[in-house]
């Protein structure tokens, strides 16, 4: 009896997936694309850039696409409610744009097999209707690290981390490796803010770093507060995060990592419209246009700028990978042998500092 039910269920499931598969192959006439944002659109950083991508959809497809979004959705139980609401509201594809939405996305996706889910910066694709997409931010961090190593006078570089997740740890390691490469005396101090967006907390973190004599600040949090804090002290520089943050040009913001999600969003919604959509795990970088290096300002000497741009171009051309051996882990054990390049699986689960960075990664 049990087995028969099971088989029947399986048959129904198969039938459903076949019909939905067939419908998919024909494509949709009209797509409602919905976005879950972790911060406010006005953050001037991460969420702002995702929203630019969403607006680009509207521009690209016009009447064929509707967009909807919800701002400042907390990571946690509330996210599941917000995603479910979109699923019930007739969204065809839902983009959940923060790492912390990972489990909520999986849970809702299981209940709505006909809706496509796209989770940013995650790695779980348990459900067939969940795809993930990410950008190789560490490529940009390598370029920032090069500038940081050249520019620091105190040889102390600070890094404001958000959460100890692989994406952030990649960024810390990539920037440290490349700062060290051009300035062997450079050290890096990491402060964990445990938030993606909290201007006051980010300002506190930046201030604490500056008080410690740090004169170059990298940030993996989304507001411009650390730059505003850097602007108060002569000679301290920082970098735009996610967005260009051009209000702080030419200093303290000397360059920026810009996330450009538009190409990916247009590609995915376009695929849904023409019927070629399939589950995927996208991870593009500088070469794919998802990571851009913001203008390097005149506060940076010409030769440093040239070195940074060369690194950027080498990464884009594929002739150089930011994680190329010889590299050791923090405890001194070998991670990558000479000339070996880190594979994506190792990067996606990175949970250790490279040799030379002090401090522990919070668990």
């Amino acid at each position, binding site marked *: 009896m049990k087995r028969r039910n099971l088989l029947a269920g399986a048959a129904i499931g198969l039938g459903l997936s076949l019909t939905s598969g067939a419908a998919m192959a024909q494509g949709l006439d009209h797509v409602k694309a919905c976005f879950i944002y972790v*911060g*406010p*659109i*006005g*953050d*001037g950083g991460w969420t702002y850039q995702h929203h630019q991508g969403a607006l680009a959809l509207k521009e690209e497809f016009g009447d064929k696409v509707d967009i909807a979004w919800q*701002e*400042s959705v907390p990571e946690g139980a509330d996210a599941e409610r917000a995603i479910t609401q979109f699923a019930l509201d007739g969204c065809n594809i839902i983009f959940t744009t923060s790492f912390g939405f990972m489990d909520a996305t999986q849970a809702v996706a299981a209940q709505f097999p006909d809706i496509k889910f796209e989770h940013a910066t995650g790695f779980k694709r348990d459900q067939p209707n969940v795809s993930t997409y990410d950008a190789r931010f560490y490529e940009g961090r390598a370029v920032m690290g090069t500038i940081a190593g050249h520019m620091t006078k105190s040889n102390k570089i*600070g890094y404001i981390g958000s959460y100890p997740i692989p994406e952030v740890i990649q960024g810390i390691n990539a920037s440290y490796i490349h700062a060290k490469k051009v300035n062997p005396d450079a050290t890096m*101090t*990491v*402060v*964990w*803010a*445990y938030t993606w*967006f*909290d*201007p*006051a*907390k*980010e*300002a*506190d*973190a930046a*201030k*604490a*770093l500056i*008080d*410690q004599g*740090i004169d170059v600040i990298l940030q993996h949090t989304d*507001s*411009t*507060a650390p730059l*505003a804090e850097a*602007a108060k002290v002569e000679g301290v520089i920082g970098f735009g995060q996610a967005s260009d*943050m*051009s*209000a*702080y040009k030419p200093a303290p913001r000397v360059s920026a990592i810009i996330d450009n999600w538009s190409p990916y969003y247009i590609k995915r919604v376009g695929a849904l419209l023409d019927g070629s959509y399939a589950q995927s795990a996208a991870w593009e970088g500088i070469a794919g246009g998802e990571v851009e290096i913001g203008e390097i300002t005149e506060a940076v000497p010409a030769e440093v700028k040239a070195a940074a741009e060369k690194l950027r171009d080498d990464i884009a051309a594929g002739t150089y990978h930011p994680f190329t051996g010889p590299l050791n882990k923090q405890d001194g054990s070998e991670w990558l042998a000479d000339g070996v390049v880190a594979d994506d699986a190792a990067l996606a689960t990175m949970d250790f500092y490279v040799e030379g960075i*002090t*401090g*522990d990664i*919070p*668990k």
Partner: protein
Amino acid sequence: MIIGGIDIAVLMASLMVGSVPILLAALGETVVERSGVLNLGVEGMMIIGAVSGFIAAVTFQSPILGFLAGAACGAAFSLIFAFLVLVLQANQVATGLALTLVGIGISSLAGQGFNGIKPPVTGAVPMGPLRDIPFLGPMLFRHDWVVWFGLAMVAVTWWLLNRSRAGLIIRAVGENHEAAHALGYKVNRIRLLCILFGGAMAGIGGAYISLVRVPQWTDNITNGIGWIALAIVVFASWRPGRVLFGAWLFGGLLVLGPNLQAAEYRIPVEYLSMAPYLITIVVLVVMSARKGARMGAPASLGQNFHASR
């Protein structure tokens, strides 16, 4: 003086700056609650002050006008609460919560187009040679005027509540509004003035966040500071002196976290993040566990008054 890799003078200075928004908002709320009104809309009034102060300061290129606008708009915004609670006799808890939600929404709307702009700088008060005194100079004499204003307001509020006739009336209204009414005091008028004061103080506190502490406008910039201010009022058992202590404790713990990390102490970040809240709970438990001790809450707190009853 450097202890364990942290410059104490600099830490104290950032503590004083960091606690200003909490201090101002909590002082205002202390007066409001002493008059028997529970206004949970502090967060909303703060963010209204933050956005209006920012807009005014940027438009007129004057931080002073920014703070004045923050105070005026915070007070004006608290009028909504006053009208609902004092005139329409709405539930104070629900109205206060609604005020916060509305405030966050309005500020987000009003702040459109003000993202990424830098406000005019609120400079330090010129203290002349005092600036260069070792230790005390960087700790005390390099602050902007709002820090001093906050400290002065602690004294003013204390004097107002404990030493002035007006304070006696406010406390009478807060302890027993029926009796105060029988004595001929206009209960709701007094409460209205207290609510406006609370709104103005929260507004200045909010403006301090957007003009000095995080000199920029972004949505939801207050990010819960108003709720901390509310907790501190209870923490301080409704006394201005203890409000200062509470604000410094909270402000201190908030700035100590990143400083300990930057000095490479190996304390788990999670403990630092939860410390302010943990300490509040502990203090509240200790205070309420003392036998026979009154928490100090005004007896009519949260109750509406209508003369017909």
